[in-house]
């Protein structure tokens, strides 16, 4: 009980301190004012509390906003279960793949400036990719050539910047089961302390797993995109994002590494039973490394990410700061797959869903296994974080957690329960 009271006092203090700032940016509303049922929102809170109690998750934050106003912002459970610290509004989470939308917006800023073209081959910016090959299975499994079941062919067309943004470049991830994924692991792609340029040198030496433009395959493509941004802008990825996205939007707690010692006590941690991503312990963001991984490397807070999402919902502007134009946001948040289907690996966007430039995009009312509007765009992170924007209903949701095994579960549960609580969407 003392523990809970402490948390409440702490939260009130934080809210009181940040309230004037919030008023300028995202406002606050009573749930009913923007169409939500308090009773049904409480059901979400109760579910999260029960999961904390049963040690399914250490702690979490959940923010729901509609029409620029925060209708729900809860923090539950522990910030750091080992140290018994309560969750905070301003907790800092490893957002993993929720870095990708930020990197994608950074690329589209250069696109708007006439410096980057979706149709250009990656090799135009990264010459290492000039002679990239595609690994193909041999047609005859008993091929007597060199004994390998695979051979290399030239790509049917060069992988493009658009391919990187929509995961159709033919790149893969080491945790998949295709043969190139195994080559990623064998090549020690992630060994040592390297920067984006060195990472691209490494990955460009390996073949593509699929012909460019033929399948959607989740991949290190957005890490490569991060290097494209560096080459085109002449700045490090973080420096470019800081100047063009993070600072204008006031995302002061979003970065690749936490250099400010004052922020160290705000880092959320996982339960000892669930604190590994693909076998690796959650990284320590206070250890300054060189790699600014545009596909996975960032930490952020609930409110920082909410600002980013509100900017997108507003058609590229937030709090007077123009990041992109409405038409560019529309280009990013509509389907770019068309008839391009999934690869042999998992199609994370799910049924009824295509992919835009950095986001999964809901294509149909039905087919999907989660509630949502056509036009919703969303993504999640490997440590369990998730978000979605609903442009039709002018709603954004940010869920922050450090519980890798629970990600897929909550990415289904939350839309279902949040839409269940939106009982008057006409408001």
């Amino acid at each position: 009980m003392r523990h809970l009271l402490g948390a409440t006092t702490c939260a009130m203090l934080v809210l009181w301190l940040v309230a004037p700032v919030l008023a300028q940016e995202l406002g606050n509303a009573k749930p009913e004012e923007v169409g939500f049922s308090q009773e049904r929102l409480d059901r979400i809170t109760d579910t999260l509390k029960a999961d904390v109690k049963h040690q399914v998750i250490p702690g979490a934050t959940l923010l729901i906003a509609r029409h620029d106003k925060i209708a729900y912002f809860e923090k539950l459970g522990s910030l750091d279960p080992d140290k018994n610290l309560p969750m905070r509004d301003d907790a800092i989470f490893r957002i993993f793949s929720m870095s990708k939308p930020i990197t994608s917006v950074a690329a589209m800023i250069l696109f708007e400036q006439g410096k980057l073209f979706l149709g250009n081959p990656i090799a135009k910016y990264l010459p290492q990719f000039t002679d990239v090959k595609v690994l193909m299975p041999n047609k005859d499994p008993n091929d007597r050539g060199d004994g390998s079941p695979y051979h290399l062919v030239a790509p049917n067309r060069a992988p493009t910047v658009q391919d990187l943004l929509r995961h159709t470049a033919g790149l893969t991830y080491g945790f998949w089961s295709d043969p190139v994924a195994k080559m990623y692991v064998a090549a020690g792609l992630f060994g040592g302390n390297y920067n984006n340029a060195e990472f691209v040198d490494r990955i460009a030496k390996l073949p593509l797993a699929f012909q460019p433009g033929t399948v959607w395959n989740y991949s290190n493509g957005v890490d490569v995109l991060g290097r494209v941004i560096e080459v085109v802008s002449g700045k490090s990825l973080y420096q470019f994002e800081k100047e063009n996205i993070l600072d204008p939007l006031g995302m002061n707690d979003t970065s690749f590494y936490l250099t400010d010692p004052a922020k160290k006590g705000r880092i959320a941690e996982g339960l000892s039973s669930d604190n590994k991503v693909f076998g690796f312990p959650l990284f320590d963001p206070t250890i300054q490394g060189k790699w600014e991984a545009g596909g996975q490397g960032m930490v952020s807070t609930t409110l920082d990410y909410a600002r980013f999402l509100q900017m997108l919902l507003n058609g590229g502007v937030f709090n007077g700061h123009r990041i992109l134009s409405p038409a560019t946001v529309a280009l990013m948040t509509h389907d770019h797959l068309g008839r391009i289907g999934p690869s042999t690996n998992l199609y994370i966007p799910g049924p009824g869903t295509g992919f835009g430039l950095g986001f999964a995009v809901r294509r149909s009312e039905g087919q999907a296994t989660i509630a949502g509007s056509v036009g919703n765009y969303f993504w999640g992170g490997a440590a369990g974080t998730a978000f979605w924007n609903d442009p039709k209903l002018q709603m954004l949701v940010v869920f922050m957690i450090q519980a890798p095994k629970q990600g897929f579960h909550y990415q289904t549960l939350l839309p279902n329960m949040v839409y269940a609580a939106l009982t008057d969407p006409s408001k």
Partner: protein
Amino acid sequence: MSHANRGLEEGNPEEVGFSRERLQRLTDHLRGEVDAALIPGATMLIARHGKIIYFEAIGFRDKSVQAPMTKDAIFRIFSMSKPVTSVAAMTLVEQGRLYLENPIAAYIPAFANVKVAVPRNDPIFFAPQGIDLVAPVRPPTVQDLLRHTSGLTYGFFETIVAKHYREANLFAGDFTNAEFAERLAALPLAFQPGAGWNYSHSTDLLGRVVEVASGKALYEWEQEQILGPLGMSDTSFSIADKSKHGRVAEAAAPDNLAGGAPLYDPRQPAKSQMGGQGMQSTALDYARFLQMLLNGGSFAGNRVLSPETVSFMTSDHLGLIPPGPSFYFPGDGYGFGLGFAVRRAPGLAKHTGSVGNFDWSGAAGTLFWCDPRRDFFALWMTQAPMQLFRLHSLLPNMVYAALTEPEK
């Protein structure tokens, strides 16, 4: 709301949703392209809700003599002739004198015997051994000409009939549209009519169809139906008025070639009136044409087409017809209407734009697009053939970046 009386007048960017600061970024970028010698010079015009909110002349009209670009410079618009010819054809469709479904042969009898080339393969080893000529499954129609599905091609594409096109001396001498149509009719089609979208001499042939159906020379019909009523007094196939000769914009070497030859001299009198590529125009002339289309077929009270006909032309006519066999210029996310590429998808494409946009461009680097949903158009004139593909992405990306009005 009827826009029949809407013309073009001056306006401020902010009044119609554009950011002045971001338009300035566009201007700065384009000046940088002049400084970097990517383009010699250009004119660019953007109008929204009938108001010209951006009209710039940058760089040189003729770099070889350091003559600055002027807003009234005359450009070779090449394939931007096609939309004008297509509108000319649709004026005849509206008058009941031309039918989209009619075989071309109904207007040009020589096409009654046109054949389709199919590959002839060795019966045992399937090695290619030239072509066979077969009858078309259905005759090519006027609609096929307007949407590039006729089976015709261009000689610069590597199709099955490329050799035939190159050896046919299609461009020999100073020829009329009637003569050009006869030359085309003697060549086999590259594919079955309606089987694919393939950029081609179709619109040149359409020009001859317009002549036969109207009983007038193409330019005379266009003058009467389009150019005269819209006040497009600087738009023509060759520039007869010597007082205009000093306004012709020139390309700068080495980027001054189209099809391997230096850009033609439009000051030379010629019989040729090629509806697919032969016109010269200015920014303000072509802007009137585009505003007429955005207005639903009328400009400042002068009606050229009805709103229904314009919307019919600017809707997709391909459906399931696939691209090919040659390069698909409209691009991912685009179909093709009657004379224009038409945007079908909000995503997929490699540049920004609204669903329903219709656009086209010319081989010397000119391009335009109309956005009916957001009620604006952008028009770009330059003479720099090698830069066309890049600009075709760059300009929409930067113009839409400047349209900051919130979406409805």
